């Protein structure tokens, strides 16, 4: 489904810096992989490249046979809208929308209208344990609940790939553990592929595979 091959990225400027080279990664539906690495290793950069938010120096990224590196901005945006879901460390839940409106955002962008939209939102909220909280506003929610909203928003439109970058960085250990479990379950139950970027070994262990990002590429780490 998602095939990354020979991906190389460096930053230009007065002090050019090679970030990583020759990254290969292959994900099928239901795969859930953790990417670890030192700070500055390029984990977020790799996610940006996969999401089509940044362009590589060389290499290819293919999603369901579509080569992302050859697409223009509008096509990439459309692809992202349809096939990607995102979970951020800082939640990025819009404070002026209700929980249900926040979750419905990707559906609205895809042109899905009521009653299908409402039904999908209700269903995904139930899935993340926020049944009946659709009309709450974000300021009434705890950090863990906000991240559940973000997970629901990442999955409501049934994306092919979910990209989560340190989704538990702002949460306490117990809440983090619940959120990680939920994220894994939801990705799996929706049949999506997931990439979790994390510094935490414990978090990484909720995934099927653990990879280490180094300047020379992605290397598998033994579980445990």
């Amino acid at each position, binding site marked *: 489904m998602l095939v990354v091959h020979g991906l190389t990225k460096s930053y230009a400027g007065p002090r050019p810096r090679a970030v990583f080279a020759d990254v290969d990664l292959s994900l099928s539906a239901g795969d859930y992989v953790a990417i670890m690495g030192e700070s500055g290793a390029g984990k977020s950069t790799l996610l940006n490249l996969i999401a089509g938010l940044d362009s590589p120096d060389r290499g290819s990224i293919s999603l369901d046979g579509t080569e992302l590196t050859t697409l223009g901005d509008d096509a990439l*945006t459309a692809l*992202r809208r349809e096939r990607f879901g995102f979970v951020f460390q800082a939640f*990025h839940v819009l404070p002026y929308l209700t929980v249900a409106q926040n979750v419905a955002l990707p559906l609205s962008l895809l042109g899905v209208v009521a009653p299908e939209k409402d039904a999908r939102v209700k269903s995904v909220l139930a899935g993340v344990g926020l049944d009946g909280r659709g009309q709450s506003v974000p300021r009434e929610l705890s950090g863990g609940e906000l991240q559940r909203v973000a997970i629901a928003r990442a999955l409501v439109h049934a994306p092919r790939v979910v990209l989560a970058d340190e989704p538990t960085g702002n949460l306490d250990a117990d809440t983090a553990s619940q959120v990680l479990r939920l994220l894994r379950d939801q990705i799996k139950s929706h049949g999506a592929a997931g990439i979790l970027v994390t510094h935490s070994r414990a978090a990484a262990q909720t995934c099927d595979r653990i990879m280490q990002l180094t300047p020379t590429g992605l290397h598998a780490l033994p579980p445990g």
Partner: protein
Amino acid sequence: MRKPGLSAARAVLAGSLVQNKARSTLSVLAIALGVALGYAVALITGAAVNELALGVQFLAGDADLQVRGPRSGFDEAVYPRLARLPEVAVASPVVEADAKLADRDDVLKIIGVDVFRAGAVQPGLIAQAGDRLDQLRPDMLFVSSAAASALGVVRGGELAFQVGLRTVTLRVAGVVPGGAQQRFAVMDIAGAQTNFDRPGRVSRVDLRLRPGIDIDAARERIQAQLPAGLAVQRPEAGVAAGEGLSRSYRVNLNVLALVALFTGGLLVFSTQALAVVRRRPQLALLRVLGMTRRQLASLLVLEGAIVGVVGSALGLAGGFVLARAAVRVIGADLGAGYFRGVAPTLALAPIPLVIFFCLGVTIAMLASLVPALEAARAAPAAALKAGDEERAFSRLRPSWPGLVIIGAGALAALAPPVAGLPLFGYLAIALFVIGTLMLMPRIAVMLLAALPLPRGGPPRLALLQLRGAPGQVAVSLAAIVAAVSLMVSMAIMVASFRVSLDAWLERILPADLYVRAGAAGDTAYLGADDQARLAALPGVRSAEFQREQQLLLDPSRPRVVLLARSIDAANLARQLQLVRGPVTLPPGAPPPVWVNEAMLDLYDFAPGKLIELPIAGKLASFTVAGVWRDYARPQGAIVIERERYIALTGDRSATSAALWLASGVNPDELSRAIAGDIPGGSRLEIAAPGEIREVSLKAFDRTFAVTYALELAAVVIGLFGLSSSFGALVLSRRREFGMLRHIGMTRRQIAAMLATEGLTISAIGLLVGFGLGWLISLVLIDVVNRQSFHWGMELNVPWSALASSAVVVLALSTLTAIASGRQAMSRRAVLVVKEDW
């Protein structure tokens, strides 16, 4: 001991100003523009008034008191009586006339003095003559240096004047040194009386009292002995009376300039409010590090002070340059005609300089105070969390303070003038603006709730965002609401005034042709023979003549105008636009006069009131029979029946005539006949009503040109404010846009969302601005104009002009919003969500 966190505070302060260079610069420029306009207006009008005062002081010389009366003068027999009074050391009679120059549309002030008396009272008026007898020759005059250069005459040259319809030519015997920039000429009093048809009359008598005499006590004694219509006063009272005529205009201009500064202050408020919200976590950090609320608030007010100091300094320099350019291009009267003939010298006036510097700094500091207090009040723990800045706009404050302020404004609008100035009217306007701005979040909530929510897409998101952050709408709109309300109120006021003026002109110009003895000055007139010739011209069906005089009713005010004209009691509405009356006089009541609105306001000459007027040195009783609308004489005017005037004064001369033509007579042919067949007829100013209307409306537009310029400045500052605040808002919402781009929103969709927000915010601003503007226009029309100039007018809303302006402002502000949002659509902005990763 070093206060904790102070170095961090300095870093935050410097960082904010440097980081937001564009917005800081805009704030500085907004304050600079307001200060520049205010300082320029103060410099120009101050210099012109100062020049007038210098002129009056120079002409009065060492006089302790002056006896003045009607503009046409009074019996010279008063002079010897004054000279014989025991307290008077020297009395110097003066004949003063604004003599119409024969070959140009201009006047020269002629001062006729008794050289032997004037030497002791007004030595500055005595010029050195090659032949000392020149000072006594009736055909010689001495011109001031300003007049010599303005008229291009030198010693030995000639000046021709129009007297009646004749030409009188006088020779220039020399130049009077001094006299500042005043244009005048001095000649022997007997020569002035003879040449300018003032036999046996003087305009004033200047008195120097004996040493040790109490001037005020002497003034009271002398006043008791004067005939009716004459007043004795200190020379400086004349300066005050002269200033009074232009004072309201000057104050109005200053207030308009201050509005530009106020709008600039609102721009600073918007910028500071958004900067403070954006830096909420940083400021909370300072509080956590140990900075007190007071220190934090002081720090933020200091930011405003820096903007104010830099802006004011730039504004003062700009104001001086602007003032010089304006005087050169428009003139010292800024187009209004109050200071015609005055060429002031502009200097860096220190008092206005200090006042406007302090005003600029104070307004910038006050503008920063509200956001500073808001930041100081924020709980540090909550403010430290990401996302708290977005919540700052979601709170709604109670609406009662805004309503109370608007109510106070309504009460202020009912208050009478203070020293002839509508100070409470201005206060009412300020309170209406401030109250409305305080209510903006509530108004925004109401209006946004009334808007139907689009079914989906960016417009829906935009509306939801606005509904969730009403405070943001208020902050963004502060400057634009103030500017739009000013624009609308001025547009309504000016349109009401113009339409009323047009209707008034139509009413007061019923004849086919109008003839005036001279466009300016008081030496041109139509004698009885001239009038008879005019009336007898073939093609003239009927003729009405009018004599214009000026009476001194109150020495502390300018003279009022007395208009002696034919009155058809059965057809008063045709002749005068009565706004009160007519009153039917009871049997035995004194004869009627009709007064303009200024007389009602200034002298309380209400319909039915019995009054006394000093005419021909005697007090005559009259009944006020009605009040008429008049846009020409804000100092006051009284209409009297001409036959009655002639009976009282014996003066059969006229200053203008209205002619009704027989059917089929061409006005142009009749004009040529007047110029050719009547001796001196070529000097008459002849115009059809249409021409007079056109000239009057042009003069009106010229007068308001400066007003338009000041208004435009305020609107530009308002748009800057919107642009600045929108830019800051977009910056503060960059994570939101980044997230939206992540989840698949295109650049176009974000642009559409921002355009919807810009359009909605601007539409709310326009709606509120229009409502507020309409309210302010009522105050301008019924309070400010009425109390300043005593002009009544009907409300007239220029719908099409306002609609066009609304479309332009809406388009500009929407474009501004989109332009500000371009940053939000860049690739860099998309990655901002990672700032937290």
